[in-house]
């Protein structure tokens, strides 16, 4: 990279930064909003600019990932301001789900362990969040999310330790039993978990003043609240994905992939099997707990029936359809979760079936199940895998 192209890079970045700041002040009505928007767009420009530094990805991959995360996050956060409350709600729910999917994708795709218990780990995080909030109302959100994550990690440790020696179907069986038994575990601690009715958060999560001032006065509480929830969810997702990206590429990630492919060879080269397995398990359960805690925030309540075994099946299905073991796969899965029922209701109206009839109400299940089977039989690497394969084919065509 010559000195003049370096200088050109900095110059272009500075120009864009200036443009962004000016545009923010012009487009917004008060100083507060200008500041926020200006800061966001500045971050975006810097993020993209950093990414364009040649050699960054090879020399400083963590920085590259960070810049990508920041840029993507900022773009999405700005978007949430314009979206309707329902869209933000779906976005928030889907983002939280993609965190869970990422954890499972890592466990299964990267380290080859099948877990059917993620619904229970989600529940651990969800209830930890609600129980803590009900007893300590002033804890900041970030701290209570962390507490939920730690709770999930601890339970993951508890379950992961006996799981180290288990193979394939036996691990599946144990995690299945845990997921099925989770409801009974919750019911045994009725006084803490609120029984069948579950728990409500003592106070609804409200946005800070600088966010509400971005809106015109008179905007409904629902709009501002859901935007704030979506923002929290998206930031958490960005952080979670950033860490996972680094973990994937690290020594631990490589060790896990080695175990998945050939555990005996892994042991021969000195990888500690039990330890690495447990780490993978703990991480996956911590991620699931984070997703569950976010759901509690978003719904302002937690209900035991949500975290049943069938949710584990949904999670597994989404991971598979999105693409096992890939980061974009988890994002795709989250999107599908947020919008599948809207798409399916549209399909139902197109087919002209009676909306309240037997067939229409089962359409969700029929489409989901068929999709699972078809994807697994014909495109086992999921949507992201199929896209990657097509892209690679195009690349080799272009080369050849």
């Amino acid at each position, binding site marked *: 990279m010559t000195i003049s192209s370096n200088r050109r890079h900095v110059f272009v970045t500075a120009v864009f930064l200036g443009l962004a700041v000016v545009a923010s002040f012009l487009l917004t009505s008060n100083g507060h909003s200008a500041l926020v928007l200006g800061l966001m767009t500045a971050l975006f420009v810097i993020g993209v600019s950093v990414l364009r530094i040649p050699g960054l990805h090879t020399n400083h991959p963590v920085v590259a990932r960070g810049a990508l995360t920041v840029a993507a996050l900022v773009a999405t956060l700005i978007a949430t301001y314009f979206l309707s409350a329902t869209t933000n709600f779906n976005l928030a729910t889907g983002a939280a789900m993609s965190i869970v999917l990422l954890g499972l994708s890592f466990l*299964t795709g990267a380290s*080859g362990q*099948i877990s059917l218990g993620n619904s229970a780990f989600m529940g651990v995080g969800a209830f930890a969040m609600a129980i803590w909030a009900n007893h300590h109302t002033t804890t900041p959100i970030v701290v209570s999310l962390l507490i939920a994550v730690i709770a999930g990690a601890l339970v993951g440790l508890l379950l992961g330790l*006996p799981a180290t*020696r*288990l*193979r*394939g*179907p*036996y691990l*599946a*069986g*144990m995690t*299945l*039993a*845990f997921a*099925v*038994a989770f*409801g*009974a*575990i919750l*019911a*045994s601690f009725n006084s803490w978990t609120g029984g069948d009715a579950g728990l409500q958060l003592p106070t609804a999560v409200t946005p800070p003043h600088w966010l509400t001032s971005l809106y015109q006065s008179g905007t409904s509480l629902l709009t501002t609240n859901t935007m704030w929830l979506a923002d929290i969810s998206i930031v958490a997702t960005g952080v979670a994905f950033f860490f996972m990206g680094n973990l994937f590429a690290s020594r631990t990630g490589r060790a896990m992939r080695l175990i998945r492919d*050939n555990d*005996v*060879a892994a042991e021969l080269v000195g990888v500690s099997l039990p330890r690495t397995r447990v780490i993978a398990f703990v991480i996956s359960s911590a991620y699931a707990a984070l997703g569950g805690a976010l759901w509690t925030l978003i719904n302002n309540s937690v209900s035991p029936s949500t975290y049943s*075994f069938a949710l584990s*099946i949904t999670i*597994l*299905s989404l991971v*598979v359809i999105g693409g*096992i073991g890939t980061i974009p796969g988890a994002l795709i899965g989250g999107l599908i979760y947020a919008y599948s029922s809207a798409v399916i209701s549209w399909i139902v109206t197109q087919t002209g079936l009676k909306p309240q009839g*037997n*067939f229409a*109400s*089962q*359409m*969700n*299940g*029929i489409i*989901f*199940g*068929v*999709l*699972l*089977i078809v994807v*697994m*039989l014909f495109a*086992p690497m999921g949507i992201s895998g199929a896209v990657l394969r097509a892209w690679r084919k195009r690349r080799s065509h272009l080369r050849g």
Partner: protein
Amino acid sequence: MDSFLTSRIVTDILSGLTNGVVYGLVALSLVLVWRSTRILNFAQGAMPMFATYLGMGLLSYHFGYWACVVISIAAGFAIGGVTERVLVRGLYGKPEINPIVVMVGFLIVLEAVAAAIWSTLPRGLPSPFSPIDWQIGGKPFAMSDFSVYEIVTALVVMTAVALLFRFTKLGLQLRAAALAPEVSRLLGVRVGRMLTLGWMLSTAVGTITTVLVASNFFTGLTPQVMDGIFAFGFIAAAVGGLDSPVGAIISGVVMGIILQFVGDFLNSNAIILVALAILIVSLMVRPNGIFTKSTARRV
């Protein structure tokens, strides 16, 4: 003697036995599929459920109960065979997660289609034998004509399967096809056909189980009728060892009895908790199941 027979302990043992043979049969079906094709069949409850709906649907066309049972079992054979041919064929040799996901998808589809066609309203099936408990000295004894029929049917099925595998040429072929497919092929065994037969047998056993379960009058026949029982059967199979048919049956029966005591002396919540505890403890001691002889792994 009378008060002993009607005592709480004996009542629990007998009721637990009746539940336990059902778990044992489910576990047996899972083991049959695992041993023959090394696949964990998550739709082990849903496929027989569908076959039962098909067969029992003919009741409204004035077919007799036993005719419908036979037709259900035949449907079970057919569904098992078709599933193996169409869905499972492409999954041999693939990573472990693939067949699990496909069978889960199949489970969802079967339950959804059954609910779409026949709705989720429970359907009562005729009781071929009286489900009223016998009375001994004016007190109920935890056995009825129907529960005897359940236990006898289970024993007959288990024995038939054992005899088939041990003493018939077909059974030998089935075992050979599972253990050493290439060699068996060379020796003239139609391996593909044996694999299909393994699935057919497993689904047929499952259908007999589902007919038994649905004929009781606690819930009747619904698309979800086998969901809970599948979970317990799966746990029993994992505890006993997926390679051991005998282990599956024993662990199913023992689990049924233990859980009956738990439900009676503790509460209904504790049932699944104890099942989970049993599973964790047994897998920690014997990670491949209690009754599996340890096999060397190829590296």
